[in-house]
């Protein structure tokens, strides 16, 4: 199949790949670039485990064509930690026991990051709305909601 060149930044780093026309961003990130922090769940836009941030907006990478991401700035959980220092959301998920089997965690964290980037002090309802496209089958969601609220509180403390 015909391959097309695509260039974007992934977590601030420039990437250039030849991808088959019609390949999803999910597949390009995992199989071409090797960023397996992005999880392939339902691959039909229902479970949210593949969620990434594209130019500041939350996107399902399983429904996004890689070739449409030319020039975009893409963020994944793979780029959140600085060395050993975890992102406040990662820390809150860890300390709040908001992950069990872990498969939904990257998508949940990106959904939460997209929320906090736009709305640093969300209400509980805002958080529920933000993760309503993400399925978790272990935790019952409550620890995840609490972790996101805790990360928002930690952000406001460090900003003060």
């Amino acid at each position, binding site marked *: 199949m015909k391959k097309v060149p695509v260039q974007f930044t992934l977590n601030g780093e420039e990437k250039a790949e030849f991808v088959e026309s019609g390949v999803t961003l999910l597949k390009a990130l995992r199989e071409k670039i090797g960023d397996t922090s992005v999880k392939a769940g339902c691959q039909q836009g229902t479970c949210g485990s593949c969620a990434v941030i594209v130019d500041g907006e939350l996107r399902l990478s399983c429904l996004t064509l890689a070739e449409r991401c030319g020039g975009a700035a893409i963020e994944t959980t793979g780029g959140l930690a600085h060395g050993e220092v975890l992102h406040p959301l990662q820390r809150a998920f860890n300390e709040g026991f908001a992950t069990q089997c872990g498969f939904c965690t990257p998508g949940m964290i990106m959904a939460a990051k997209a929320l906090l980037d736009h709305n640093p002090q969300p209400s509980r309802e805002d958080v529920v709305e933000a993760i309503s496209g993400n399925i978790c089958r272990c935790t*019952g969601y*409550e620890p995840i909601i609490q972790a996101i609220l805790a990360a928002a509180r930690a952000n406001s403390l460090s900003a003060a």
Partner: protein
Amino acid sequence: MAMRQGRGVAAVNYPTGMNLGGDPTQALVHSTPTGNFMVSLSSVDLGQGMKQIMAQICAETIGVPTDRVIIDTADTDTGPHCMGTFASRGTHRAGNAVIAAAKEARQVMLEVAAEELEVNASDLDTDGTGNIHVKGAPQRSISIFDTALAAHFKRGRSISGRGMFLIPRSYPDAETGAMKPSTCYAHACTVAEVEVDDETGEVNVLTVKNVFEIGRALNPKMVEQQLVGGSWMGISHALYETTEPYYPSREHGGRDFNEYLMPGPGDLAQTEVIVLERPAADGPYGAKGPGEMCANPQIPAIANAIFDAVGVRIDTLPITPERILRALKANGAEDAGTVAH
């Protein structure tokens, strides 16, 4: 036509594992040359925290910090035998096997340390931070690191242990049918409050208050995590989950897990979880299995709460709006919903 509230209560006894054919689990422990301890198991960690709990049990028994223990559950073809991670049996069965293996390894470790320190092994104790010392004389000590090096390179000893835990098969009494299918039971009680729309049959779970008696909570935070998730799954069993809504017909069944309904983040009941610890006589450090038990009492509690709210007994799961409306209609409520037959 109104929203009607109801409250229901239910209590369960839940067996930890089952032994209808005999129920063994095997564990092997050995030290590396630098005094870390490898635990080989075939019991699987699928997110419930098996590795963490087994590391804690091994560390507690040998007398080393938890981070000195490595759990290897790699391969059921080549590893020690385990019946599997099911029936809430993991902590109880594998935990007891790990204790047996770790005790044997600890004994060899103390024997090697005794030779190095020129004392009797029965006079030695561990300090839990990685050292072995003479009881009452902590200055007479050797690190576990040095003990392991001596065992490997000087004394030719294998600091290792074998553990097997078996609940033997229980046969029913020919006369009465009585038998002992399990040796250890966890308990739970749930009070649920619901709101039922008697026009649409929709149920909204308002609150779920649970008390769980689980033996000893070996890792309280992980236990809480499992109980909170389990309580949510219990609500899900009661009201949502099914593969064949019109069993045995496959009609209207979910085609994949995306269509297999569970409550979403916007459907959560206000949930309370209280843990009672009554250590089990045959549990590893008193632990029972909290895994499956925690998703059970919500189901009868919600069914009872629905009966309290609208006076219908639903005995088929899940308790869907359709089943409630049909039961209301059978109860004589002529105007209940408008269900097409």
